[in-house]
């Protein structure tokens, strides 16, 4: 992730989403180390040390009767009561959490009570796991990693489509409809094409040239074509061909239309920041080849080739 980029914002939102989405039984530790009420504090010290844990639920005949932590052990040591029983030092009726609750509820409970761990029970009251703040962090990281990995695979698949699908000439055709005089949605075709090319793994500089050229072509269709038109992109591994085609009115003087600054666009188009006769020269500047054919009363076909 780039620092300060929009990706970072996405990531934070993703984390917030996961906190509400992940359930406690997806991140908790299932193998719970427990002690008995008659376990001595000296035995407890060894159990905590050997298992590298900082606390344990206290079980009697299959029922949880309390919880004991390393803090209780320190207090016992201070009091010179290392051979005392867990039963005398444990916290009775410990705060628990249900396995089907969300991580968010656990985070709140940890925040409210300041406990180091929470025993996890099912709806029948059976102890099914134990949860620490470390479990939550690990669970979230694991999940983020899985999501990231899936996204990577997804991207890899898209960018290797031309290697995976073998033929003598593989091409991908993307067709976008452009509505006449629709300046609310004008730009959506170019925007979608841009995103598709990013997905396919095209270089950012090339994507930009294609985006600018197709946006200008789309704008031309929206401004001039009586019935709108089609923006068709044919993507091949080495080059992309973009064709903007309409059914009229056609251009009277193609030579003149290609001159920078020549425009027949109405004022309302100019108010939107277009129609200054720069569109075709912009398209030309972005493309490796450009052809414009038109017949008045029949239609116009603009073909652009950009090498990838």
């Amino acid at each position, binding site marked *: 992730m780039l620092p300060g980029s929009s990706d*970072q914002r996405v990531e934070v939102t993703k984390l917030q989403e996961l906190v509400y989405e992940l359930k406690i039984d997806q991140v908790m530790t299932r193998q719970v180390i427990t002690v008995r009420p008659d376990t001595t504090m000296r035995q407890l010290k060894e159990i905590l040390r050997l298992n590298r844990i900082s606390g344990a639920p206290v079980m009697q005949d299959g029922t949880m009767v309390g919880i004991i932590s390393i803090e209780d052990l320190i207090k016992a040591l201070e009091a010179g009561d290392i051979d005392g029983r867990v039963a005398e030092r444990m916290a009775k009726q410990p705060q628990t959490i249900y396995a089907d609750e969300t991580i968010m509820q656990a985070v709140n409970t940890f925040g409210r009570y300041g406990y180091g761990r929470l025993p996890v029970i099912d709806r029948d009251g059976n102890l099914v796991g134990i949860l620490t703040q470390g479990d939550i962090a690990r669970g979230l990281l694991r999940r983020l990693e899985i999501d990231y990995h899936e996204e990577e695979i997804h991207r890899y698949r898209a960018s290797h489509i031309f290697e995976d699908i073998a033929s003598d000439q593989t091409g991908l055709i993307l067709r976008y409809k452009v509505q006449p005089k629709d300046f*609310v949605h004008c*730009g959506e075709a170019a*925007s979608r094409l841009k995103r598709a090319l990013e997905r396919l793994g095209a270089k*950012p500089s090339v994507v930009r040239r294609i985006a600018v050229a197709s946006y200008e072509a789309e704008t031309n269709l929206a401004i001039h074509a009586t019935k709108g038109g089609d923006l068709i992109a044919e993507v091949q591994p080495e080059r992309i061909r973009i064709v903007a085609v309409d059914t009229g009115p056609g251009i009277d003087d193609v030579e003149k239309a290609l001159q*920078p600054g020549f425009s027949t666009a109405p004022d309302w188009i100019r108010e939107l*920041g*277009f129609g200054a006769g720069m569109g075709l020269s*912009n398209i030309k*500047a972005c493309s490796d080849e450009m052809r414009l054919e038109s017949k008045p009363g029949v239609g116009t076909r603009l073909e652009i080739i950009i090498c990838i």
Partner: protein
Amino acid sequence: MTLAEVLAIIEGKLISAKVDLSAEVMTACGADLMSDVLAFTHAGTLLLTGLTNPQVVRTAEMAGILAIVFVRGKLPPAETIALAEEKSIPLLASKYTMYETCGRLYSANLASCGLFQVTADNWCNHASPTTNPAS
């Protein structure tokens, strides 16, 4: 220059709700003609404009514009703000004219973005008044 610095220099207003003010702009361009904006080459550029319609955001998206400053005290309509939100393009506003807003940023060493090579070549080839600019 960070967006936070830009805001301070132009004594501007932030329009977008969620903006990463530490984002860096390398260059800037001022234009009310969107086709001209599309003719500038550099991605990561700050666009200064007096136009406020959603096509400004579309243009920014295609051209790789990093953020938009609306000049002359203009504020964009809701649909422009919504589209900018969707495309994650920060919107800022300045009460100063295009000339002064640009001047303030230029004086603070924010460089101008460049033109497409073809456009620049055209200038060299057709700069003389005796030459017909039509090609």
